């Protein structure tokens, strides 16, 4: 059982870098600091010395370990002027589709790297690799979210360049990833019009902790009972600072607004002091 990594009690997270034809698989083993460092020399017969009850004041944030690692990632990103973006959504809202469009359309202008988080398979990483962009697939096993520790190991193999944009596609889940800071600059929540317009009210943590909300699959609006004004109002009720962009990865409608947003977040190297 691993206390730093993932939800799964087997804790077996794997990392696979997919860089053109070079493959490199590493399974991350964990060194557990749980062993007793001192030996109890005394036998069973005599009294044990620690029998008195005492209170230990702890006052420690349970997410402290994750937050420390997230800050470490953030420091690395800041030092290299890397724009790290954490993409979260329910399964199938279109995270990978949005990345495919973005990478294909902007790879001539910006430098990209991608981390894909899924419980199983390299399917999403293979889709990213097909665009020619370097990607590391994290398989979390039973874990339903990425954490800062996993991202730390993923960037060790990815080695993102200075001034690049790092997309981190989280595990498809609108609940668990909300609590885990990865060290990203912005968190982007994606919903699609085939989901209910009360999503922001049902899963408020994700909307509360995100800075941008993308409403995807607007090409399907004529066919589904989805009130876009209502979903926007609901999202704003949960987080009044949330920016909202409507688009369709299939038709390309609205992608220009997303690209404008993305470029506005990229700090040009000569503007960084």
């Amino acid at each position, binding site marked *: 059982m691993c206390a730093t990594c993932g*939800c799964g009690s087997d804790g077996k997270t794997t990392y696979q870098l997919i860089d053109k034809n070079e493959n490199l698989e590493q399974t991350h083993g964990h060194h557990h600091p749980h062993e007793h460092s001192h030996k109890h020399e005394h036998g069973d017969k005599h009294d044990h010395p620690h029998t008195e*009850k005492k209170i*230990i004041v702890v006052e*420690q944030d349970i997410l402290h370990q994750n937050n420390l690692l997230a800050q470490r990632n953030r420091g690395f990103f800041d030092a290299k002027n890397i724009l790290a973006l954490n993409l979260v959504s329910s399964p199938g809202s279109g995270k990978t589709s949005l990345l495919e469009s973005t990478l294909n359309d902007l790879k001539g202008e910006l430098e990209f790297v991608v981390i894909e988080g899924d419980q199983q398979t390299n399917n999403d990483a293979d889709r990213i690799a097909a665009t020619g962009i370097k990607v590391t697939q994290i398989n979390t096993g039973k874990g339903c979210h990425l954490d800062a520790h996993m991202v730390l190991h993923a960037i060790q193999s990815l080695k993102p360049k200075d001034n690049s944009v790092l997309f981190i596609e989280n595990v498809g889940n609108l609940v*668990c990833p909300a609590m885990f800071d990865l060290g990203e600059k912005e968190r982007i929540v994606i919903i699609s019009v085939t989901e209910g317009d009360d999503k922001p009210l049902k899963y408020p943590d994700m909307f509360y902790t995100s800075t941008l909300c993308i409403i995807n699959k607007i090409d399907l609006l004529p066919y589904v009972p989805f009130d876009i004004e209502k979903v926007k109002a609901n999202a704003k009720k949960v987080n009044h600072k949330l920016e909202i962009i409507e688009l369709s990865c299939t038709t390309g409608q609205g992608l220009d607004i997303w690209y404008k947003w993305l470029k506005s977040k990229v700090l040009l190297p000569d503007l960084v002091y």
Partner: protein
Amino acid sequence: MHELSIVMGIIKIAEDYARVANALVIDEIELDIGTMSGIDMQSMEFAWTQATKGTKLSATIKKVNSIMAKAKCIDCETEFEIKNYYDACPVCGQHLIAIIQGKELKVKSLLVS
């Protein structure tokens, strides 16, 4: 089920502190959990039973201080209890609120022997 990760985090913190204090048994653990911390208490109980097996916390009494979430209206500065992020200010009806309490997720203390 991020609650499982949370419970593992608690176990790590508690075992680390107990080891430093040379304690053999953790009799009690006191936790602060805000009502808007993102923890579902039923999932937490389930994860607790599963994850503490075979650890120093398998027989530990868990005391949870549930901390009621409070927000402050950005417009009129009224402070009020909230249940949801989208709750409006009871005085002016605005949704522009800042959460000032209820996001806690903390190990407060241990009773060891």
